[in-house]
């Protein structure tokens, strides 16, 4: 019985892999839905019990892979607190949207018995809900009429191990307070991590 429980319990490694995978599909979904890359670049794959659009652009794939592999390392080290996908106007270089994924560690309170293991299906359904919410966000986010590019920012702790030359400190690509609006989105959690999604966008009347 205990063996089975141990088998079902998710480890830090497994949780990191799951979260990283979610980031991959989440970022792809955002890039497709917000038309940062042409729709032809994406193809459908089956994931989390639904179809998800994933890029076929080799350069982009390569970039995402490199970024996410590093993020996974940081997740294992517990040194990343936030991952932000910023959509930026190509012309003016102003940030238009910031898709923020807060990464929190789930730790049971002192003296409290650890919660029951969360079934994989439940995690998947939560992820599915977030992805669907990202898709539905398009209906009320402002329409972007200009060509855009994107960047992925990682908020890490000071003590994080950073590969020199590959990752650099950067401006947080903030949206001015007077023109910023935000919407809190769903969240999902494994037994180790809790991911809370939020989108802040530029809204000018």
């Amino acid at each position: 019985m205990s063996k089975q429980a141990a088998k079902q319990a998710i480890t830090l490694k497994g949780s990191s892999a799951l979260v990283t995978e979610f980031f991959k599909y989440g970022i792809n979904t955002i890039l497709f839905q917000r038309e940062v890359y042409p729709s032809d670049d994406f193809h459908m794959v089956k994931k989390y019990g639904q179809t998800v659009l994933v890029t076929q652009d080799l350069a982009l794939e390569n970039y995402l892979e490199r970024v996410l592999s590093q993020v996974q390392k940081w997740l294992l080290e517990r040194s990343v607190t936030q991952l932000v996908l910023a959509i930026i106007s190509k012309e003016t270089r102003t940030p238009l949207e910031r898709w923020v994924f807060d990464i929190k560690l789930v730790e049971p309170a002192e003296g409290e018995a650890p919660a029951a293991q969360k079934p994989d299906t439940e995690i998947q359904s939560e992820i599915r809900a977030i992805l669907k919410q990202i898709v539905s966000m398009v209906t009320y986010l402002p329409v972007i009429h200009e060509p855009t590019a994107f960047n992925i920012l990682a908020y890490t702790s000071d003590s994080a191990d950073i590969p020199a030359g590959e990752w650099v400190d950067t401006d947080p690509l903030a949206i001015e307070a007077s023109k910023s609006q935000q919407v809190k989105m769903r969240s999902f959690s494994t037994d180790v991590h809790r991911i809370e999604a939020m989108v802040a966008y530029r809204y000018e009347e």
Partner: protein
Amino acid sequence: MPANAPPSSSRLTTSTLTGTRMKAGSSLKRDSLAAELERDPQLSTAKRLARKTTLNTHLSQSALDRELAALRSSHAALEAKLKDRDVQITRLEKDNEYLTSREAEEQEEREREVGEMQGRLENVEEELRNVRRLVAEVEGERDDALDERDALERAKEGTVADLQAQVDTMTGQVEHYQSELSECHAQAEANGRLVQSLREQVDTLTEERGRLVGSRNDDAGARVVREELARQTKYIRNLESKNLKLTSEVTSLRERMMSVEVLREEKRAMEKKLGQLDAMRARTVELEAQLEAAEKERKNWASKAAMDFVPAHDVLADLRLQHATLLEEHGVVSAQLNQRTIALQAAEQREFESKDSVADLKNQINALKQSVDRRNRAKAMDEREIGFLKALVASYKAEEFVSTSATSPIGASEHQSDPKDASRIEDLEATLAEYKAANKTLLAQLDTMEQNPIHTASSSRAAKDEELAKERAKKEKLQAELEAALADSSSLTTTVVTHTATIDSLEQQLFELSGEIAGGRHVPPNTRVLCFKDNPMQQYVDLRQEAMDKLKGENEALMQRLFEVEARLGARGPAAGGSGVGDGDGMDVEETMLVGSGSAGAELVPRKSWETEKEMRQKLEEELKQREKRILRLKEIFQSKSTEFRACVTSIFGVKLAFYPNGNVRVTSMYDLNATFVFQPLGSSKTSSDTANLQLVAQGELNPEDVTDLMGYWLGSEQCMPGFMAAMTLQCYETWKKGGGQGEVA
């Protein structure tokens, strides 16, 4: 011979050369020598040798001398040349010096000229500055003058108006004077006429005097005439004096006229003032009228007040009287009211008392009712007791009857038990009597209590009051507690409300703060914001920067070129400007490139642009090459694959396939090359899906009889092309086998 050989081979060659040269000239000498040689051959040989050497030396010496002479002459010539050169050099040096001096002079002169020019330029600039200053001053002056002119014009207009007025007045005066003059003229004429008439009279008188002188006879007449004459002269004098007086009067009048004009002016001014005074007077009159009206009103008021004074006093007295009566009435009414209130209070007291008595009576009634009830109950109990006793008596009687009727041994025991029963009955009766006595005493107590109801009521009331007071105190305490609890609960509800409000505000704040973080405006402490160095945005920015740099370079080159062209055009002036751009001087060649062979100027592009274009073109060409190479490779692959495929088909199905670009397919049996069929796809489209519906359109040189049956069966009735082909293959194979298996198999 080698021992006699000359030390220098060069000399030998020279001597032999000279020897051969001298051969013709010394033929006679040789003869004598030959004679000597003939005479003594032994000696002659040595001599000949010696002579030969002497001759050689002589010859060489002379040759050397000659050479020397030639060299000397050449040396002299060279020296002469050298001298000439020297002379020339000195001349040239002189020229050079002269030229340098000239150049220096020119330089000095130029410097001087430049200095002068600069001086002049400075002077000119100074002058220019002066002129500008002057211009500015002049402009200022001009402005002043314009202002002055305007002022003057205005003044002029004023003076012109004044003068016009003066002229008008003058013309008026002139007219006046002219009229006076005409009057004077008329007077003068009248005087003249008078003078004329007087002269005429004088003439007539003189004539008359002459006549009278002629006829002086009559003294009396003469005397009369004299008198008349004296009278006439006197009259004339009078007239002249009058005339003088009149002229003086005229002049005085003229003067007075002037003063009259002045006076008129004054009068006009006075009249104007008078007009103003009239207005003032009208105003004064108005004010006076107002004053009068006001006075009248005041008087009216005063009179009215005087008239109203007396009745007002009466009214006041009446009012005071009324007031007094009213006060009196008020006092009476208030006294009555007091009495009434006292009566009311007494009545209330009475009512209260009667209520109390009613309540007491009610209580008494209740007590009586209760006593009646009790009596009734006691009566009923007594009746029940009587009934019970009667039943008991009956039962005793029955028992007695039974005991009397039955004489049995039981009777002994009954008799034995009789004292027990009797004692029991006695006990019972005693208890009953006790109960009755107790009941009686209780009833008596009750009656006494009812008889002294006041006492009991008072005692019970006191107790009740105490109880009530206790209850009240308790109630008040409870009320106070309740109020305290209510106050607590209200304070708790307020705190709950405030807490909910703070929770709401904190939640809002939390949302806003999370928005701050999400918007990137706040970075949590001890956190680094990192991004991948080679991110898409950076790539885009780099690309754009590169393009921008390129464009900047091109632009700079273009600007430079433009400046140069402008500078050159400016230097050459408009006359040379037409052909300036295309002239290929050194700078042009360096900075621009000629592209194509059209007209000059238009074809010149900056080197930078050209290089950029070239680079881009090279890139495109490379890409094109790569693409072509790829296509070629794909074609090759396709070719090899198709060959493989066909070979495979040939070996498996026994037919060779050939595909034509128009979509036709030629099928040839590998066993009979004459068995060839051409199929055409049905429909216009040549896509692969349509190849299933092929149509036979031609056939090779086969025996029609062999084919017709097969075609009739497979294509006509079965409509199966593969079957037809298979049958054909079989047939061809049979034929080929019969033929010995030679030839057609590929």
